[in-house]
């Protein structure tokens, strides 16, 4: 909480000193945060944190406590702190399915289902941005309008297809499903980003005799890193937290991901949510790590730097 208020006094000298030390001196926005900036951001951050913090604290309280008093009781009546317990986490991790197994399954699903669609979409986005071909706009619009189709309508036809191929229940079945369902958005975002790249650079590469394949891997891909990183974050997140696709194409059993495993904790009448919440906090750790790891790609001047290189 304290952190969210950003009490950063921001001594000007300090910031500039840092910038000077950094070799990448494009990474400098001349504007500095004034009080308006700080207050606005602080307010937004606090608003964003309160519901999350409340639930996080709740996840350490016993169900009876949760149902009889609010989480802020921890601050107003410190005596209740003594009753905090790890039992929700304990039950969430050991109570239902084999969470260790499910965790590895989730990884085996999410990593390829993140990487492959980005590769495929980047190739397609490159073609849509930098290549001239017949039917380009029509094909692109077809792809984008598919964004509006809920993937639910695909379940029965795809299940039938998988059945003839004997693919139901395999990892490849969910990979392909996530690739297909995520492709529209991936192409859309990447192509619109690539359209903002300086065309002159690509054309001069062509004049220098670079093939499309080389231009793609050596020039466009590095220049698109911020967009690729953004999309990687989202795709990983969606696949990691996906329940429906996993349930339909893998189902419960030896290949089930964490999201499916967590549903075993709930009873038919919806009881047991306190365990799924605790489980939810555990499973959100990895997407956060991915976000933090990829955040370093959102740096000013990265694209400019790549152009030079």
């Amino acid at each position, binding site marked *: 909480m304290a*952190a969210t208020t950003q009490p950063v006094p921001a001594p000007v000298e300090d910031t500039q000193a840092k910038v000077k030390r950094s070799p990448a001196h494009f990474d400098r926005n*001349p*504007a500095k*945060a004034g009080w308006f*900036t700080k207050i606005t951001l602080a307010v937004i951050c606090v608003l*964003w944190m*309160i*519901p*999350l913090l*409340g*639930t996080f604290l709740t996840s350490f309280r016993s169900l009876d406590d*949760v149902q*009889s008093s*609010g989480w802020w009781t921890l601050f107003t009546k410190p005596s209740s702190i003594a009753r905090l317990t790890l039992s929700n986490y304990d039950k969430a991790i050991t109570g239902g399915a084999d969470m*260790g197994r499910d965790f590895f*399954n989730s990884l085996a699903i999410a*990593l390829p289902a993140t*990487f*492959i669609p980005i*590769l495929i979409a980047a190739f*397609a986005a490159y*073609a849509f941005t930098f290549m001239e071909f017949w039917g*380009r706009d029509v*094909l692109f619009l*077809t*792809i*984008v309008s598919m964004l*509006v*189709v*809920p993937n*639910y*309508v*695909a379940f029965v036809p795809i299940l039938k297809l998988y059945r003839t191929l004997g693919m139901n229940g395999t*990892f490849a079945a969910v990979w392909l499903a996530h690739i*297909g369902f995520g492709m*529209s958005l991936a*192409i*859309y*975002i990447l192509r*619109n*980003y690539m359209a*903002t790249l300086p065309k002159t650079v690509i054309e001069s590469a062509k004049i220098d005799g670079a093939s499309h394949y080389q231009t793609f891997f050596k020039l466009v891909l590095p220049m698109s890193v*911020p*967009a690729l*990183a953004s999309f990687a*974050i989202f795709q990983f997140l969606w696949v990691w937290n996906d*329940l429906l696709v996993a349930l339909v194409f893998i189902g419960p059993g030896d290949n089930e991901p964490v999201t499916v495993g*967590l549903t075993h904790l709930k009873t038919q009448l919806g009881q047991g*949510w306190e365990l*799924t*919440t605790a489980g*939810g906090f555990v499973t959100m750790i990895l*997407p*956060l790590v991915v*976000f933090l790891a990829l*955040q370093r790609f959102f*740096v*000013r*001047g990265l*694209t400019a730097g790549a152009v030079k290189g």
Partner: protein
Amino acid sequence: MVTKALTTIITIIVGVGAALIVYWILNKLAELLPERLEDRIKPYLYILPAFLGIVVYLVYPAVLTVINSFRGPISQNWVGFANFTTLFKSHDFQQTLINTLLWIIIVPAVTIVIGLTVATLSDRLRPGAEKLTKTIIFLPMAISLIGAATIWRFVYDAEPAGQNQIGLLNAVGQLFNKGPVDWLSTDNFHLNSLLLMVILLWSQVGFSMVLLSAAVKGVPVDTLEAARIDGANERQIFFRVIVPQIRGTIVTVFITVTITVMKIFDVVYVNTNGGFNTNVLGNQFYNEISTNLNYGAASAIVVILMIAVAPLMWYQVRHFKSEEAA
């Protein structure tokens, strides 16, 4: 566990490797062609895997959906336009359309405003503070739907008067001796719909923030500096220098969020399931296909969505044209 870890790694490598090999081969294949043909065929080879995926997983099911929208509940008989006329005649469905429209008008715009605010303002903070701010805004995206539903339960919950309020809003009310309000069943001025939108905003602003932030970082510093030297103030710089340069990303985010909102269902489903006049198209679709098992009506809703997206596509085309002209 060790074997499980090993098989996991092998599975991942095989999956990713296979995808890489496909492209390597596609490229080699194209290079075997004479140069003139190669240039003509290559674009199609590059988009082929993507297009195959979309055709199998989206276009083909979408075509089936259009066909099924003229058939009965389990797609066994033809019913003409009956699915559509039943929908449009129903008073509930008219309300559903109005609610959906409300979502479309409000959510994408607010998402952009908050996302852009955080993206541009946090850009001025020190790197550590910037990272922290963005992480906080991003956090809700990382939590699963079930988690998010529980989180907001502790905000909107109402207990009978006299009991301890465990919902944040009503607990604050209790401090000021205001009786509990059952927020989610109060549809005066669509209050409950607005409160549901807050949930979506809370969890999805991270999306627009990340994309817009990447775009803001891409604005060349020299253009900003030039504007400052010309004596522009920060507001003018934002509206005259930054916004025009990231207009493309704004359009991308706006269209993406609008389409997401058009088919939004989970936030509504888990909180009210469309009760108390909060129903939206996506939730109606979900109920028809998963609870009522009425594929005809569900398909008709998807067809309505497909038609409704046309104006956005038209706008997108115009945006392309202006982009190319520039």
